């Protein structure tokens, strides 16, 4: 069972890489050449590997965010907005130090996500829609902030001033890598522990698989929804906070850069398993840095990384049942409830 799931994930990754390499023919490069650039540009040197790990950190956290939500049957597509909310929260709290900034990013992400769960409980608004819409609001809110109240003192670019040095995440040794990687790995282990070693996690997963049966077994499914959404949002928020505190040190437009959406690909490739997310975040991190190298040396746009993500998602959806059922259940139940069918009693 587990072997099969891992095999499917490896297959999906391999198919994505193979298609990417073959697509190079269109640009006049041999697949073998592209493949070697991708590999050397992502894991081929110490420098490349550091770049890959740096990219993996936010991917790991947004991936975990999606894992927790989908496991609970909550269709949170709002990683992007929660990522931005977390970064904004961290920025505002940065003057009180690093710990305060990290806490603020968790909280801000959780609150942003909870707007969607509040609307779900209050008016049964499907979170698959509300979370996406909240992304747009967050993007424009950040855009306004860096062009207005939070713009740098010199007023030159649409970006904020840098955060105080005391709030920045320390780097590890002489590398570019920052301490956020430790936080992210701890978060992955914590998410695994929550889902598979606590009674709360058991109930969360039960609610995700079958809301009705969970309810009859005495589980408060609404509470599970609220909790899962908040934890999921906190993870995405932490991703944004760490990116700010460890890498960019300032806010600017397009800060999220697709990390929130990429989290869906990370989670699906990980078969919605928190520890699998470690490997899949690394894979997508490598894909992203490798694609950067492709752009520099072969002149192929680095957006091919998104192409790779899409291939992976498609392969995973076609070959794994858990992903398919996770995909239809929450939205399906919401839709039928709106039409007054007695799906839930």
């Amino acid at each position, binding site marked *: 069972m587990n072997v099969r799931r891992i095999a499917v994930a490896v297959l999906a990754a391999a198919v994505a890489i193979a298609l990417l390499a073959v697509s190079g023919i269109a640009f006049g490069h041999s697949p073998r050449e592209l493949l070697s650039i991708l590999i050397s540009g992502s894991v081929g040197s110490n420098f490349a590997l550091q770049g890959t790990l740096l990219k993996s950190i936010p991917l790991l956290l947004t991936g975990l965010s999606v894992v927790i939500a989908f496991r609970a049957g909550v269709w949170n597509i709002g990683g992007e907005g929660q990522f931005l909310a977390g970064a904004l929260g961290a920025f505002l709290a940065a003057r009180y130090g690093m710990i305060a900034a990290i806490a603020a990013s968790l909280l801000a992400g959780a609150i942003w996500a909870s707007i969607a769960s509040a609307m779900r409980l209050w008016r049964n608004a499907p979170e698959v829609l509300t979370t996406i819409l909240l992304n747009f609001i967050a993007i424009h809110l950040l855009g306004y902030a860096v062009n207005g109240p939070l713009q740098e003192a010199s007023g030159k670019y649409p970006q904020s001033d840098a955060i105080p040095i005391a709030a920045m995440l320390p780097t590890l040794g002489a590398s570019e890598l920052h301490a956020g990687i430790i936080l992210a790995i701890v978060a992955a282990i914590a998410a695994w522990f929550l889902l*598979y*070693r*606590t*009674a709360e*996690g*058991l*109930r969360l*997963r*039960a609610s995700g*698989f*079958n809301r*009705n*049966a*969970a*309810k*009859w*077994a*005495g*589980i408060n499914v609404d509470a599970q929804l609220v909790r899962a959404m908040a934890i999921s949002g906190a993870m995405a928020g932490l991703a944004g906070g760490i990116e700010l505190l460890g890498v960019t040190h300032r806010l600017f437009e397009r800060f999220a850069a697709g990390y929130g959406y990429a989290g869906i690909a990370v989670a699906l490739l990980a078969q919605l398993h928190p520890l699998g997310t470690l490997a899949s975040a690394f894979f997508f991190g490598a894909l992203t840095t490798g694609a950067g190298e492709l752009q520099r040396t072969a002149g192929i746009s680095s957006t091919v990384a998104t192409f790779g993500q899409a291939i992976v998602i498609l392969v995973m959806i076609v070959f794994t049942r*858990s992903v398919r*059922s996770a995909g239809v259940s929450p939205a399906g139940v919401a839709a039928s409830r709106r*039409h007054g069918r007695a799906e839930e*009693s």
Partner: protein
Amino acid sequence: MRLSHITKSFGANKAVDDVTLDFKPGEIVGLVGENGAGKTTLMSIAAGELAPDEGAIEDRESVGIVHQHFLLVNEFTIAENLALSMWGRDPAEVIRDSGIDLRGFHRRVADLSVGEKSKLELIKAIAGRPRFLILDEPTSVLAPAEARELFDVMRRLAADGVTVIFISHKIPEVLEVATRIVVMRRGRIIVDGGAMSAEQLAEAMVEKRSPQTERRRPAGWTAGGSPALKRNELEVHRGEIVSIIGVAGNGQSELAANLRDTLRGHVAHIPEDRARDGLIAEMTIAENIALAEPRWNPRAAARRAAELIERFDIRAQSPLQRAGSLSGGNQQKVILARELERQPEIIVAAEPTRGLDIEATRFVHDELRVAAARGAAILLITSDLDEAFTLGDAIHVIYRGALSARLTPGEAAERAPVLMAGIGA
């Protein structure tokens, strides 16, 4: 049209057992019987929707059928719904020809009353000019005036030579409109005839059960005291099993859901719809059993599940087997194991043996008896009258959401048919 020696089984259950019926043009046949008597199955066979295992339909005619549940597209208008089954015909004309009063065919079905929806279903069925029209519980959602209107339509069709089959639980209506009454019980025809009194019909419909004579009481059991479960006229004391019986759809599911949402304390629930509400199919047996536990430890849960598999004789390979891969009866045993092992003070069991074989049914009954003997208050909501009488210390009949007075099994055996059919008080 003639149904000749029709037999149809689902698994071990003979839904229709060697039924032969002759229909004449212009008849209105009232087809009545308890739940699961085989009425709907027989009519699905007549309509050609189900193939019989044995027997044949002779002189088959064009059949129209109105199902118990609406088969309409809510987002479409009346006209659009009609167009789905008769493309190209003018909806206004179709409605006019049917002689049924349904106005505003540009209204969306979602905005119609249930009465209007059932009219639309009827229009759909008779627009194809069938010679044989089956109406499955058409009046269950209708107001009396609407039912009257429906009867006029039925009589008019019959006058045109159509054979109308009217499936119903409502004895007064059957007596009012039917020219011939067929009573089914356990897949067989019990009565086929004309005029009869309401009491005769009720008795023919619902088999008399002899009340159970002895039941072991738990040690130290005493009558009276304050009930463990109390809802209006419903009272269940410790050590007691109270059965709720009635025709399906009279509020049993709502009662169970209400008790699930409102009862506090040490309560076990056995849900009616096992496939939807019973187990988390994707999770293991161990996980399912541990769902309501305060703590979760995979190893301890697996050990505990292994014990329960042994004790409840669940046919499973391992506690780590997916619950969804078990057979229906074994799934039910897992639910029982989970719910009863918590030593609940109150047990609400809805249809606990539906679809189980004899051995599994006996097992479930024994478990419920043991729980009662231990002192649990048990509410048994069931459509299986044998079960209700075998286990129940007291019986309520539920009809249109209201419970009858508390009856002793002896009283219930006498009065259940009439109360279930909603005639007389």
